[in-house]
């Protein structure tokens, strides 16, 4: 039978040992990257002698990497929702902002333990995520994306209007919370805090996506009706994805406040943050979780390198990101577009089955069937 031989040749082409080698290479790469990140404060000055004379140059770059770790957490949280659950959010700055404002306000008013406040920032953002999920369940494709975008915009305008004056009133709606929101003055230690938080997030999200919950999310993403037919409560899984995703986005925002000492609409509620979340997740590859780490490193390092270009740097940066996407990762971009397109109505059951590549005998059989049907 011809399909048997087809199967056989496939089996031969995909040898088991090759996939095992690929897995080893991946694991080795991941361990190497981890070692590089862990040792960075020590090997970077060796690589750049200027840092040995001027430690502030090292601190500057460590701060860039802290920002990259924060962006990585945001990007990974977006990837859970967008890459796994197929819910493309354009408004992750909302959750980032909820975490940031919660942190800024709580640190000034109560001054609790920073890690407790950061966790509470995540929880408040998660509540926001669940509130957004309720209407989001009824929407698909671009309508869902638009809804998240508008929600983020609305919160931005709300904070500007409320002008919360807990700390020193700065720009519109901004909260300056230093010296209450300081984690440590040691730049190296702060780098390790951010790295630890980022790695913990990566580990938790990765474990979630590898679990049966991740499989269920992917099923819901790929074919919601078929997932329901498999007994999965699609609404529940989507809500869960919203909750977990916004929780980690809130954690990112909360830690960010402890990093820069303020929460400002122009910063944490800026829609550009939403775009950055998508950009780093897509650059690194949607539906991979870890990809966003690479995307965020790339993004923040280039942003710093382009700093001499002033405000033009963002135009340059996003153009560069776009170029890379088009050249290298058109596949990933294609998947984002696929996620943005309105869902085609499910294939109607009465319609003819799509032609299948089948063995000669099956095709003949199918033709006989078609001819036998009265039209």
């Amino acid at each position, binding site marked *: 039978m011809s399909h048997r031989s087809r*199967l056989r040749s496939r089996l031969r082409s995909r040898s088991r040992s090759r996939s095992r080698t690929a897995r080893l290479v991946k694991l080795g790469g991941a361990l190497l990257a981890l070692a590089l990140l862990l040792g960075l404060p020590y090997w970077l000055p060796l690589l750049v002698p200027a840092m040995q004379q001027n430690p502030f140059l090292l601190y500057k770059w460590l701060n860039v990497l802290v920002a990259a770790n924060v962006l990585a957490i945001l990007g990974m949280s977006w990837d859970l929702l967008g890459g796994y659950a197929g819910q493309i959010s354009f408004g992750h700055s909302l959750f980032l902002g909820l975490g940031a404002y919660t942190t800024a306000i709580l640190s000034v008013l109560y001054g609790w333990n920073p890690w407790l406040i950061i966790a509470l920032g995540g929880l408040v953002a998660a509540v926001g995520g669940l509130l957004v999920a309720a209407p989001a369940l009824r929407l698909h494709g671009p309508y869902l994306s638009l809804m998240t975008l508008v929600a983020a915009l609305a919160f931005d305008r709300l904070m500007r209007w409320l002008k919360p004056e807990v700390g020193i009133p700065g720009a519109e709606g901004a909260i300056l919370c230093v010296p209450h929101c300081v984690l440590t003055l040691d730049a190296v230690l702060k780098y390790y805090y951010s790295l630890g938080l980022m790695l913990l997030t990566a580990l938790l999200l990765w474990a979630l996506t590898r679990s049966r*919950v991740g*499989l269920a999310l992917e099923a819901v993403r790929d*074919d919601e009706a*078929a*997932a329901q037919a498999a007994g999965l409560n699609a609404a529940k899984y989507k809500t869960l994805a919203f909750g977990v995703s916004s929780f980690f986005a809130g954690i990112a925002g909360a830690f960010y406040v402890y990093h820069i000492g303020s929460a400002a609409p122009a910063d944490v509620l800026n829609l550009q943050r939403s775009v950055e979340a998508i950009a780093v997740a897509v650059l690194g590859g949607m539906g991979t979780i870890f990809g966003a780490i690479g995307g965020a490193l790339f993004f923040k390092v280039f942003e710093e390198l382009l700093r001499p270009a002033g405000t033009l740097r963002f135009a340059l940066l996003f153009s560069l990101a776009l170029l890379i996407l088009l050249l290298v990762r058109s596949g990933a971009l294609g998947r984002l577009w696929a996620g943005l397109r309105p869902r085609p109505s499910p294939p109607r059951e*009465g319609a003819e089955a799509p032609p299948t590549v*089948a063995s000669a005998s*099956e095709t003949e059989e199918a033709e006989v069937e078609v001819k036998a*049907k009265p039209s």
Partner: protein
Amino acid sequence: MSAMNALLQVQRLSKAFGGLQAVSDLSFDVHEGEILGLIGPNGAGKTTLFNLITGVHKPDRGRVIFQGQDITGWPTYKIVNAGIARAFQIPRPFRHKTIAANVEISLIPNGLFARGGSRRARARRVREICRRVGLCALWPEGARRGCDLSGDGDGDCPCRRELPDVLPQAGLRKLEIAKAVATDPKLLLLDEPFAGLAPAEVEELSALIRELREEGRTLVVVDHNMRGLMRLVDRVIVIHFGQKLAEGTPDEVARDPAVQEAYLAGTIEEE
């Protein structure tokens, strides 16, 4: 007909799409443990009926009672978890997931902290199901050692590596049935499982359907005609323009004047 042995009761079900009455005032029972054939020509409303029973569409009128419980208007997943599974007419695999993962999806419980068994237990169940619907047998003998149930769960079964797109039409149908069986249904709705299959494959699938009945499941099998169903089913219901035209044993239905008239009118094919 007593409600005692009626597993499923369809009561005066109606559904229109725009001006088109796809199902109209349809009533019948499915008895516990039987294989019921549902035949009718193209567009008779067979698939729509399945969609109404499984909650994909809400009926305009009428009720669906399953095990004495009114399930009309329930969401699909809840109906599936109550014990009604369905194999789509056009196979609908999750194309980015391996064959085994496709089956595993049906085994995932909704409760986040529900005991869904260990990963290993799930993998074992997946292999069990893949074997029993004959998915593993699609591969040559040497390539499917890992499908053995004696393995440790990380065997070399091709179903764990391959995506559904390697499957021929018959394989996709088997996968569709595997996905449905994995939900452990009391009632299994099969939408034209024989379409496009070679005679040998029809025999194989019929044997599987009988086996599923032996283990206590009830089946409703849709087809265009009685050809494949005659020797398989206990009872037949003929649907025509969304209405019930006849009901009875295969012989009774074949002798039914209304059915014969429809046959002569050429709207129902005879073999």
